[in-house]
C-alpha cells in the first residue's frame, strides 16, 4: 500500500538546515498495524506527515496505493487524502469553533455526502466512540480523553483504508490511553491499516511491526508475532 524509496526531507530555515529524514526505505502493506518509535526529534512526525500526504518529501519516491505522489500538488494530495486517510493527533486538533458533531461531520462535507446520510453516520460513529451524549458540546468543554475519542470518530467517519496516529495517547492518562488503543486495535481487526507514532512500549506491543527511527534513518524493523 505504501512504499518509499530513498526518502529525504530537509528543512531549511534562515540559518540552519535540518535533515529530518535521510534515505528512508519502507514498505507497508494493507491491513498492517505499524508502530514508529524513536527518540524525540528523530523524524517520526515528519515521516508520518509525508505518508499522510500532508507534506512533500525533498527527494526520493513515495508510492501510495499504486500512485507515485511525491510531486503531487496540494490539490491532488487533498483529493487522494480525503478518500483514503484518517488522522489522529497527539493534541487532538479539533476545530474550536465547531461542535463535536460538526467536527466529526467535517470530512463528509468535503465528500459531498447527503445531509441525512451524514447525520446517520456521524451519530453512529459517536455512539461507537461512546461520546454521542456530547454531540452539541464544543471541544473545550471536553476532557482530553473525550476529545481524542471525537478525533478518532472524525478519523474513521469516511471509512478510510489508512489511519495515521501521531502519539494518540501522548496527552492521555493510562485508562484513557488504554481505551484509545482498544479502539485502534479494533479498527485494525476490521481491516484498516494503521500507522502509529508512539513513545510507549506497551502501545507499541499492540502493533504487528515496530519501525525504529534514529536521526532520520530507519535502524531496525521488528516483525512481531501477534498473540
Amino acid at each position: 500500500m505504501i512504499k518509499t524509496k530513498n526518502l529525504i526531507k530537509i528543512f531549511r530555515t534562515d540559518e540552519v538546515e535540518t535533515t529530518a529524514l535521510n534515505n528512508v526505505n519502507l514498505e507497508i502493506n494493507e491491513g498492517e498495524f505499524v508502530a514508529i518509535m524513536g527518540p524525540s526529534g528523530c523524524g517520526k512526525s515528519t515521516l508520518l506527515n509525508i505518508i499522510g500526504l500532508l507534506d512533500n518529501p525533498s527527494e526520493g519516491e513515495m508510492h501510495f496505493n499504486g500512485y507515485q505522489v511525491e510531486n503531487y500538488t496540494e490539490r491532488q494530495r487533498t483529493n487522494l487524502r480525503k478518500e483514503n486517510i484518517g488522522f489522529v493527533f497527539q493534541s487532538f486538533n479539533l476545530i474550536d469553533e465547531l461542535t463535536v458533531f460538526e467536527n466529526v461531520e467535517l470530512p463528509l462535507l468535503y465528500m459531498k455526502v447527503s445531509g441525512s446520510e451524514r447525520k446517520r453516520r456521524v451519530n453512529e460513529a459517536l455512539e461507537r466512540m461512546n461520546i454521542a451524549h456530547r454531540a452539541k458540546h464544543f471541544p473545550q468543554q471536553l476532557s482530553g480523553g473525550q476529545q481524542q475519542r471525537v478525533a478518532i470518530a472524525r478519523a474513521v467517519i469516511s471509512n478510510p483504508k489508512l489511519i495515521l496516529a501521531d502519539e494518540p495517547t501522548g496527552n492521555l492518562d493510562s485508562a484513557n490511553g488504554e481505551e484509545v488503543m482498544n479502539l485502534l486495535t479494533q479498527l485494525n481487526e476490521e481491516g484498516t491499516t494503521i500507522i502509529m507514532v508512539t513513545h510507549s512500549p506497551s502501545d507499541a506491543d499492540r502493533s504487528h511491526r515496530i519501525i525504529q527511527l534514529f536521526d532520520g534513518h530507519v535502524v531496525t524493523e521488528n516483525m512481531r508475532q501477534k498473540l
Partner: protein
Amino acid sequence: MIKILLNTVIRNLYKQKVYSIVNILGLATGVTCTLLILIWVNYELSFDTYHKDIERIYTVYENQKYADGDIFSVYSTPSPLAESLKEEYPEVEYASRLVSTWGQLVLSANGKTFVETGGKIVDPDFFKIFSIPVLYGDYISPLSNESTIVLSRRLSEKLFGDIDPIGLSIEINSNYQFIVGAVVENAPENSSIHYDFFLPFKFFKEYWEYDLSDWEANSFHLFVKLKDGANSEYLAENIRHHVRQRIPYSNVELDLQAFEKYHLYSISKNKSGPIWYVQVFLLVAVLILLIACFNYMNLATARSERRAREVAIRKVVGAQRRGLVGLFLTESIVFTTIALGLGIVFVELLLPVFSDLTNRTLTLNPGNLKFLIAVVLIVLSTGVLSGSYPALFLSSFLPIQVIRGVFRQDSAMLRKVLVIIQFTMSIALFICTCVIYKQLNFLKDSDVGYNKDNIVYVEMLDDFYEEYSELKGELLKIPGVHWVTAANQMPVNFLNSTWDVNWPNKSVDSEDVLFQLSFVDFDFIETFEMDVIQGRGFSNQFGEDTLKFIINESAAEKMGMVYTIGEKISLWNYTGEVIGIVKDFNFNSLQVGVDPLIMMRKPSSFKYIGIRVGEDKDPIINKIRKVWNRKFSHIPFNYRLLEEDFNYFYQAESRMGKLFASFTAIAFIISCLGLFGLVSFITENKAREVALRKVFGANVDNVFQLLFKEILKWIVLSIAIAWIISFFAMEWWLNGFAYRIEMGIGIFIMAAVLSLLVACLTIYRQIARLVTIAPAHVLKYE
C-alpha cells in the same frame, strides 16, 4: 529597564516587518492628509484677519426684493450712501466706497507706460478702516488730497524702481495728472481686497462722467468701521430702510455683513459661499484621521492578540501585569511617534505641491500650531488606546484561557465593526466625489444657449466707435473671421440691471421685476449663435436700428407677450419696438438661473469687440494681430477667449473637485491597508482551522470560498450603508443648484464594483497563500 523595553519593541517591530510598516504608514498617511487639509483650512480662515479691529469692520449690502419672492443680494450700493450713513448714525465711525476702475487705464511716468487693471477708487476713510501700512508719504491720511494717487509697493517699484517716489507725477490716459501721495504695502495673499493703486473719487466722477449723487445707481462696495462698543445688530436694523426712505419705490433693504465673513460667506440667504468647501474639507480631514486611527487600532490590537501566547507564557514564568502594560504601551507609543514624525516630514515635502493644487501659498507656520497639537494628541491617544487594549485586556486573562484561545471572539467583533466603518466612509467619499465631478462637468459642458467656443474678444479704450466700422471691415476680410460685433459686456458675466422698464398693460406686481440690461451692436446674436425665436437680431440692413429692443424668453414671459414681436416698450426714457425674442441663454454662472434680459443698440456704451473665428484659432488670431497692429496700433490687442473666461467660473470648483478626489483616493488606500493587515491576521488566526479542514478533505476551492465570502460580506454591508449616506448627502448638495444632474444608479454600481474589486485584490494573495500552504507546516506548531 527602558533599554530592555525598547529593545524588545524594536525586535518585535523588525520581526513583524510587513505589519509594522503597514501600520505605521497607514497612520502617517492619515496624519499627512489631515494636517495638509487643516493647514489649508487655517489659511482660508486667516483671510483678512490681519486688519486691526476687524470685528468692527462691516460691509453694507443690498437685499433687492422682488414680487415673486426672490431676494437678490448684491454688494453694490448707491454712491451717496457712505456719507449719509456716516452723518445719520453715530455708530458709524468711518465709511468708504470702493469700486474697481472700469476697465484698464494707461499709466505713464518716468518715461514708462503701462496698461494697468488693478486700480481702486476709494474714499480717504478706506485707510482708516483697513490696516494698510504706508511705506512712504502721507501716513495719516493717504488720498485725502484729490490730486494724489496712492501706489502699491509693487507698482511703485515697477514705475520708479527702488526709490521714494513721493511728489513725482503720473499721467493717466494721457490727460489726467496725479502726484504720488503715498506708497502702501502690497496686499498680502490672504486679503480679500487686492489693489495696485488707489485713485480719488474726483477722477471717477470726471473720467466716467458718473453722477455721484444718484441714489438709484448701484455701483459701489461700501465698507464701514463702527465705533468701539457699537451694536451692529441694532445698526443693521436701523439702516434697513435707509434707501427706501429716499427712493420710495425702491425694493432695496440694506444689511450688514461682518468683514470677517467677507471671504468665506455668501450674502445670499440660500447660498453658503466658500465656507462650504472649508466645512466639507474639515469633515474629510476628520474622516481620514478617523479612518487612519481605526486602521491603526485594528492592526495594533490584532497584532497583540497574535502575541497572546507570548503574554501567557510571560505570565506563566512570572511577569507582572504592570510590566506587560508597560511593554505594550511603550510599543504603541513608539509606533505612533514614528508615524507622527513621518507624517510631519511628508507634510513638509508635500506642501509645495499642495500649494500649487490649492493655488495658495501654504506653510507649516506657528498659526497652524493648534492643529498640529490637536492631531498629535489625537494620534497619541489612538496609540495609548490601542496599546492599553492588549495591555489591560490580554494580560488580564489567565494564561490557561489565552493558551486555549477562548478570548478571540469579542475583539474580532469590534474589529469587524471598525473595518466596516472605514470602508463605509471611503466608499461614501468615493461616491460623493463622483457626483461632485459629474455635476461640475455638467455645469461646464451644459448648453449655455449660445456657442461660447471660438470667440475672441478685446477690451477697447473709450470712444473707439468712430474707428470701429473700419476695424470691423478690416477684420472681416481675414479668412477664418466669421462675425464681428461690439457690446458693453460679454455674456459671461452681465452686470447691469434695471427695474425701470415699461410695457403695455404692465401690472403693479411687475413693478419690481429686475431686468438685466445689455447694449449690443449689429450681428451680436449671429456672432454668439444665439437662437432667435421670433423676429431678428440688430442688423445694419435696417439702418441704425437704435430705439429697437431684443428681449429674451423670460422677459417676454414677464411682459405677458409670449412670442409676439412688434410691441412698444420703454427702457428709461427710450421707447421703441421689440424686434426680436431670443431663447434664454445663460449670462452668469449656471449656479444661478436666467433673469429677464433686454438688449438695445447704444454705440456710445460699447466696451468690447467680439470676434467669431474658425476652429483653428491660433493662426487666425495671429493674422488678426498683424492687421490690428498695422492699422490700429494705438489700441493694444489684448485679446481673451470667451471659453477660458467661462472655464474660470468653474476653476475654483474644479480645483476643489480634484483635491476632494485625491483625498478620497488616499482614504481608500488607507482602508485597503487596513483590510490587508486585518486579513493577514485573520488568515493567521484561521491557519489552523484551514489546515485541519484540509487534512480532512477540504480542497483549496472550498476553503477559498469560505474565507472570501466572510470578508466580502463586510464590504457588501459597507457598500449598502455608504449608498444610503452618500445618496442623501448628495441630494442635499445638488438641490443647491439651479441646474442639476440626477445622480443615476451608475455611480453607485461603479462604487460597489470598484470597492469589491479593490477588496478582492487586497485579500486575494493572502488567502491564496494560506490555502495552498501544506497543512503539515501549520499543524507542526500546535
